[in-house]
């Protein structure tokens, strides 16, 4: 009898989700299809994860050419690669010890790349200075976020450290918080107004939170996942002011910052807005902002390249943060290089620019067309509505279940939207995630749909959803 059952309580109490159930069933169905056991559809349509490449989008040519040359520098002698690709690869290789991407790098990332990222941030923020010393590159923004949590969360205290998080929020973040022993303080986004963040809601949540734990951090996801909303400048100011008044550390997850659609939409970084708010606030509010190569039109999730920029950290704490960031040797070099390419893409006049800009633009156009189509299809369906998509890769439509459907789910001891997703998968092969995984207001139900996929795939998905949804609503009316 293994005594190992007595394992870390923190690990044991981890957030339990239905992730396995749905994904596992999707995998099983794929096998059934391969073995010819299914006739109602010939493949599973996977719109469950925020993975551009898995969804059929091709990687950006310039990125892959530079990476290939870095892997195998003999390609630099090749005529097939454009000049700017070769130049970039040469520069990056010269920054690696021994000229090889196989060497360890500085644990916070290659200096030249951190500089490049800091320059990107400064350009993005219209001139607000950014220092490479405050930038830490990690194996994905998730890793950087977890390290910040490690810094903030005092798991041994009798009074739990609290972190305010939006509802809805993506599932693996909740898992990370639970794993670190943080108390989760949910604040609801306002769905009716396009998933906006109201400071009153933050205030309410904080008041409640203070009764049971010690809130120290406020986590924001902007642009939002799964909601697709983007904060207005005014909203960001209000949040920052709130954080200043209530003494909260802001964790700004901004990984979808380059996926913004619509003529009237603009991304404002927390750092930029902070810098323009008067010297008291701008020099005291502590902020960590996160970005990554996984999102945006690069979609290089598997390369694991992300960074955090720290703003206004206490210098002594910064020293410790540096130490924490440096115990895992270094972030994957290929991921770092991808970050350099994201921060400093081809410019007009560069040989690779035409192809690059075409590829990037076509992805944006595709997403816009997809969301247009989604609204069209939904407008014809009863019991399903969707807030406009402003940014990011997902929509989070609301399902208005008839009471009969709710009863049925209760009998089956499952969340209604989870049951909906399971049946949707079973009957049409469409795999999307249920809202219960992300959190939602009581008695509200949602699904999360990935929209950064090719138009014909989106059309196929919408048809499957339409067919199923009509049948479902009719059956439970």
């Amino acid at each position, binding site marked *: 009898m*293994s005594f*190992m*059952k*007595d*394992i*870390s309580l923190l*690990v044991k109490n981890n957030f339990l989700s239905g992730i396995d159930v749905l994904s596992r069933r999707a995998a099983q169905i794929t096998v059934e299809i391969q073995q010819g056991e299914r006739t109602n559809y010939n493949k599973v349509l996977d719109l469950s*994860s925020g*993975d*551009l*490449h*898995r969804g*059929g*989008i091709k*990687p950006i040519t310039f990125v892959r*050419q530079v990476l*290939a*040359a870095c*892997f*195998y520098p003999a*390609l630099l002698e090749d005529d097939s690669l454009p000049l700017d690709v070769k130049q970039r690869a040469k520069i990056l290789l010269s920054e690696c*010890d*021994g000229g*090889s991407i*196989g*060497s*360890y790098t500085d644990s916070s990332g290659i200096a030249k790349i951190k500089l490049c990222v800091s320059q990107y941030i400064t350009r993005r923020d219209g001139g607000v200075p950014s220092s490479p010393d405050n930038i830490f590159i990690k*194996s*994905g923004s998730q890793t950087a976020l*977890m390290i910040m949590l490690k*810094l*903030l969360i*005092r*798991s*041994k205290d009798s009074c739990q450290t609290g972190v305010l998080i939006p509802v809805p929020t993506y599932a693996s973040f909740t*898992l990370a918080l639970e*794993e670190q022993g943080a108390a989760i303080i949910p604040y609801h986004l306002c769905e009716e107004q396009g998933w906006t963040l109201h400071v009153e809601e933050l205030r309410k949540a904080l008041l409640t939170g203070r009764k049971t734990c010690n809130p120290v951090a406020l986590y924001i996801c902007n642009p939002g996942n799964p909601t697709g909303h983007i904060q207005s400048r005014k909203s960001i100011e209000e949040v920052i*002011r709130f954080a200043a*008044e209530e003494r909260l550390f802001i964790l700004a997850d901004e990984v979808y910052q380059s996926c913004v659609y619509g003529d009237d939409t603009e991304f404002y970084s927390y750092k930029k807005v902070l810098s323009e708010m008067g010297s*008291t*606030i701008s020099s*005291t509010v*502590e902020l960590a902002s996160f970005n990554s190569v*996984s999102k945006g039109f*690069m979609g290089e*999730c*598997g390369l*694991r390249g992300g960074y955090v920029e720290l703003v*206004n*950290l*206490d210098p002594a*704490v910064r020293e410790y943060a540096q130490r*924490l960031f440096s*115990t*895992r*040797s*270094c972030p*994957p*070099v290929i*991921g770092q290089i991808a970050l350099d390419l994201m921060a400093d893409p081809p410019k007009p006049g560069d040989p690779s620019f035409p192809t690059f800009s075409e590829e990037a633009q076509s992805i944006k156009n595709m997403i816009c067309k997809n969301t247009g189509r989604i609204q069209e299809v939904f407008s014809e369906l009863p019991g399903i509505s969707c807030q406009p998509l402003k940014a990011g890769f997902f929509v989070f439509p609301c399902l208005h279940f008839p009471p009969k459907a709710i009863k049925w789910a209760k009998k089956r001891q499952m969340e209604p939207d989870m049951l909906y997703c399971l049946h949707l998968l079973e009957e049409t092969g469409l795999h999307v995630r249920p809202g219960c995984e992300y959190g939602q207001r009581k008695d509200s139900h949602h699904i999360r749909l990935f929209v950064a996929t090719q138009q014909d795939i989106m059309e196929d998905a919408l048809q499957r959803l339409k067919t199923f949804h009509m049948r479902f609503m009719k059956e439970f009316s």
Partner: protein
Amino acid sequence: MSENGALPRLGKVLTVDTMNPNVKKVDYAVRGPIVQRAVQIEKELKEGVKKPFEEVIKANIGDAHAMGQQPITFFRQVMALCTYPQLLDDNKFPEDTKSRARRILQSCGGNSIGAYTTSQGIDCVRHDVANYIQRRDGGIPSDPDNIYLTTGASDGIVTILKLLTAGEGRTRTGVMISIPQYPLYSASIAELGAVQVNYYLNEEKCWSLDISELQRSLQAAREHCIPRVLCIINPGNPTGQVQSRQCIEDVIKFAAKENLFLMADEVYQDNVYAEGCEFHSFKKVLFEMGPEYSSKVELASFHSTSKCYMGECGFRGGYMEVINMDPEVKAQLTKLVSVRLCPPAPGQALMDLVVNSPQPGEPSYQTFIKERTAILSALAEKAKLTEEILNTVPGISCNPVQGAMYSFPCIALPERAINAAKAKGQAPDMFYCMKLLEETGICLVPGSGFGQREGTYHFRMTILPPTDKLKILLNKLKEFHQKFTQQYS
């Protein structure tokens, strides 16, 4: 909260007092203050500052490519093909590189290494790893379901430690680790708030492991914690010892008797040089000891793409195999690894190539075997050279470098030097290494960063610089030591 909205009080949310206190104990000597100083000196040299040397030689970190070792051609070709599949049409690439690349891409989402993989790692890679382990261990089966691909071996090691750290105060998990040890262990133990339980390797007997020492250490630890884990690094870092088969059996018996989870760090498994030494995997020995042990002893063994002959540290590729883990605990492990989404796909792909390298008859085989052999034999030569030269220095005594990538010689320090160090608030071997750096540009890591018996001093030096540079390094070191000894006697 003030009424007019002004800040009620200044001062940070996150201060040294409000942050997680465990963070204060985190230290990682390999990249510590001596490396920071080395980097500073490099900058100064670049700026034209005059020094008694022309370059800084970083013999502190186990990074082969940084020291000029060339990557294996086959690996890099396949990686280029995986990254930019257009190259599959290029006839400069041999057919076996293309078939490997196609196979890897087929198992990636959207046929791209840019897609997320499952958090346990790409299926076909885990299968290939299991097959490799089976071949390596003379046919003992390996289940792909027990294989977890990781972001370097460090990721796997920390994950397992996290899983096993529980309890409070006197019931807190104790983690047994060798002294000297690779400081990832001490840093992680500190970070997780587990209890570090030291067992001393025997320097007189070439850093061997004595069961009696394990017993002593365990007994003492039981007074203040619950020892649950026994970590072994074989071949050893920093010591380079390669454990004998008998020793491994004895350790397994000990772990079985005392109910300890075994963590076998085997990242240097191809780096074995000394005559009469051979790598024995813990798994193989465990299973050859019969079901009494093989069905009960819980074991996690770790491997990586960073060492051996590959030296691909920057890829962050690795795996761990977990044996006899309680199914409930294993379910928790699977959940734990899902929090960080997935290990880097390029590292997973590279791991696949390492365990599935060119076979005789394949087009890339000749070149591959030539490159691999050259690297390993150069390392063996340098291991011997290092031991020989260091042992000619009065006051330095170096055990044979049986394996891995380092020498960890014992240095005699004069009383005056020890006092001078203490006056500066520095460990005596740190004081020595700092002086060495300032006067010769050679960057080593002081033994205090790895742990050593009280009153003894060491440094860790890699054997990775190219042979001619290594000779220069060793002779400079010899000169320095003699000068230093004289200066402080």
